[in-house]
């Protein structure tokens, strides 16, 4: 096709009086937007390639750059808005599925923002977390229903299955090496080790050099089984079966061959340059009893030394599915909501399939309690957790811990430009290109991640103190500390919280 009908989405503005033609922008842009015209000694931009990742803006030593949304307005039409029109243009020009990256950017309600937290006033004291003890430690895993002790000898007869401690109830979501660079993996691993939490390999295996962080590592066993072998399972603290992902429930994944570099190939244990295809289902799981079979296969393979987690996307029947997962022997149920992110997903799936995590969490926690099996597994939620208040609200709704993916990536540079699927991430995150991947310096990135968790920990403690509790478990599932604002009765009922003021 000769010409695309797509206008540029963003305009690159360059302040000529500031630009010194140093070409830092040229070198920093992963999308070849900026270029240097030698003849005219001038740096210029190809606006149509810009994804507004702002790498150039941040790196310009003279602050000469600004990126603006193209002010071009389509003829006003509530139904046929720009995005709808442009998607059709792209598909008409390529005949392909539209890909996107990061989480759902549509205007579905964010229930976190309609939930408010409680604080103590007069009748009970709030606690000052700076000086008084405040416990955030959380254990993940299956617990027996009761503790049995031989009171004659004082011997504990209850044998606890392996439980995994978290010093902060925030873990790093599964993001595979291949979708992101090894440097990002290393940053997450180091930060998790330092902060006393867990990171998750995602489905692309664990690079040899990260085995040393195994005791803070959740290894995933996904449908592609990439890099899954006995050593990988042995290295981990937790083994997670990935069934689904919030950004693309029911969808497999294709890591394109060009991202399968020598190192990615070695880690996934597949030939370099071949597509890494993750089938939509696990082909040994077509039913809940098959899931149980795989859970126990993994427990057998690790001799019952590690909790097994099962991660699903939040879908309509999440509560029933979660119940089944617990009954199938999982020690942890991880649920990823509709705002969960991805390196690449069909846009149509990301934007339309799944349910908000708040609702899924509320119903799963409620269902497991009603069935008396809530103690048999920990519940971890993911999908768009943005700050420590979201964490606290999730825990009050019933989560044991949360996963953060996007927030972690933003902490190390991501500007949520949603172009992860291109592999050209200017911030060096969602890429395996060596030139770009160097942009993440694990020394810096792990430090930033630890800072983020430290800051959130402080804030969580402040919020707990305000509520007058000094241990996180007193908040866990304690929905009395939540009230809803601007919610319908049905929403309040599903969330299991009362209207503010009541």
């Amino acid at each position: 096709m000769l010409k695309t009908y797509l206008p540029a989405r963003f305009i690159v503005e360059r302040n000529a009086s500031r630009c010194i033609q140093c070409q830092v922008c040229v070198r920093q842009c992963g999308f070849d937007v900026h270029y240097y015209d030698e003849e005219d000694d001038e740096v210029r931009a190809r606006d149509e390639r810009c994804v507004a990742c702002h790498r150039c803006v941040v790196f310009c030593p003279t602050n000469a750059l600004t990126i603006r949304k193209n002010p071009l307005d389509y003829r006003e039409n509530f139904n046929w808005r720009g995005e709808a029109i442009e998607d059709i243009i792209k598909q008409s020009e390529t005949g392909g599925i539209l890909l996107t990256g990061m989480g759902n950017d549509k205007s579905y309600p964010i229930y976190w923002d309609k939930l408010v937290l409680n604080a103590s006033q007069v009748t009970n004291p709030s606690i000052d977390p700076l000086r008084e003890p405040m416990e955030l430690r959380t254990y993940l895993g299956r617990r027996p229903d009761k503790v049995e002790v031989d009171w004659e000898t004082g011997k504990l007869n209850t044998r606890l299955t392996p439980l995994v401690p978290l010093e902060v109830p925030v873990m790093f979501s599964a993001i595979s090496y291949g979708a992101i660079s090894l440097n990002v993996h290393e940053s997450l691993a180091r930060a998790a080790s330092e902060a006393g939490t867990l990171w998750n390999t995602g489905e692309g295996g664990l690079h040899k050099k990260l085995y040393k962080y195994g005791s803070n590592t959740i290894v995933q066993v996904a449908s592609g089984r990439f890099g899954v072998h006995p050593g990988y399972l042995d290295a981990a603290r937790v083994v997670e079966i990935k069934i689904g992902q919030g950004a693309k429930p029911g969808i497999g994944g294709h890591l394109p061959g060009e991202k399968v570099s020598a190192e990615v190939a070695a880690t996934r244990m597949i030939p370099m340059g071949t597509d890494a295809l993750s089938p939509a289902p696990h082909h040994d799981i077509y039913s809940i009893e098959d899931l149980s079979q795989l859970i126990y296969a993994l427990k057998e393979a690790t001799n019952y030394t590690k909790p097994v987690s099962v991660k699903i996307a939040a879908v309509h029947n999440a509560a029933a599915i979660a119940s089944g997962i617990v009954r199938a022997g999982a020690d942890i149920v991880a649920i990823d909501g509709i705002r969960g992110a991805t390196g690449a997903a069909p846009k149509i799936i990301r934007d339309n399939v799944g349910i908000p995590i708040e609702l899924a969490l509320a119903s799963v926690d409620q269902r497991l309690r009603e069935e008396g099996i809530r103690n048999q597994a920990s519940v971890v939620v993911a999908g768009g957790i943005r700050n420590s208040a979201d964490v606290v609200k999730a825990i009050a709704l019933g989560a044991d811990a949360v996963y953060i993916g996007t927030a972690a990536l933003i902490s190390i540079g991501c500007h949520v430009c949603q172009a992860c699927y291109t592999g050209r991430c200017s911030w060096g995150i969602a890429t395996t290109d060596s030139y770009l991947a160097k942009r993440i310096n694990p020394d810096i990135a792990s430090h930033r991640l630890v800072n983020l968790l430290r800051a959130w920990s402080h804030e969580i403690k402040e919020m707990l103190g305000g509520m007058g509790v000094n241990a996180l478990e007193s908040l866990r599932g304690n929905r009395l500390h939540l009230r809803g604002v601007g919610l319908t009765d049905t929403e309040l009922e599903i969330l299991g919280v009362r209207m503010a003021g009541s």
Partner: protein
Amino acid sequence: MKDTANHYNPYGDDKVIAACSIFGMMDTSGRRFSGVDITKAIANMHDRGNGLGGGFGVYGIYPEHADHYALHIMYEDKLTQRDVEDFLRDNFHVAFAEEVPTRRAAAIKSPPIVWRYFVYPNSRRPADRSNDDYVVELVMKINTGFRDACVFSSGRNMGVFKGVGYPEEISEYFRLEEYEGYLWTAHGRFPTNSKGWWGGAHPFSILDWTVVHNGEISSYGINRRFLEMFGYICTMHTDTEVVAYAVDLLLRRHGLPIEAAAKVMAPPLWSHIDRLPDNEQALYKSLRQVYSSLLLNGPFTIIVAHEGEMIGLTDRIRLRPLTAGVKGDVLYLSSEESAIRLICPDLDKTWTPMGGEPIIGRLKTNKEGKAVTIEECAVA
């Protein structure tokens, strides 16, 4: 307990998801045998279930009442029982009634009251209604009209025994070693919620049709709405129920042969149909076009049985397992071969069918008096 919103499906899920082990065995010579072997076999697949459902269907157990419909009914309380029995007496001739014998079993918690009634339609049956239709209608009436009663078996010379527990526990509870039948099916269940309801266990049954099922029927929503047009009321909120009704509709009411019904529930792919000779193509196209809403989509293996016949069928891309075995006159169907081997180590033959290809066992002397071998039936 029929108040499904409160009992069986308290959360109002679209359908209750369950998975399982299934087993069936049939002596095509008609020789009857006890429930000992099938109990052992289904128990060998213990890990496929989670103790929240087990059940058996047996054919040929009530030869002394062979002409009567044997209604197995479970009650939550005596009051309901009295009301239902009044209803039965109003609409049927009740030849014999007794409580189904049980034995105390440690694993069985709060069992319902289970009675059986050998009945025959009385004069209230409208002339334009067959006996079978009349029984179906009244079973639906009881199951929807009485809060705490459930008819879970309604065929002649056969019976369903099921409840909450592992199948071997249910067998022990109902003393199945004391029954003899020529065809047994069994089921161990793995539902994803704990509100185990005795009526929710498999087999699902209407008249002498029983279905045990492994898998989840993703097309359940439309299958159910289609069947509702034909008067079937899905009270169980489970995908297995629609299989039972679909079989009843296709085989009994629409008179399709089982081979054709299998092609409705698990039709060949269009690309396959396009390659068939013209006459076959026309048949398969018609079946698929007319009964498109009865395509059972998603993973399933079912064992459907009725008088004199046992059919094993998987979905068209065989997402759930099914192994068949033959020893002499006996046909075995199972989720796992080891379960068959446990009770019959020296099989003549074992194999796994292609997806959508039914395995059929028939009594050598069937109702029409035709002799049929398993071998022939197996190759569809």
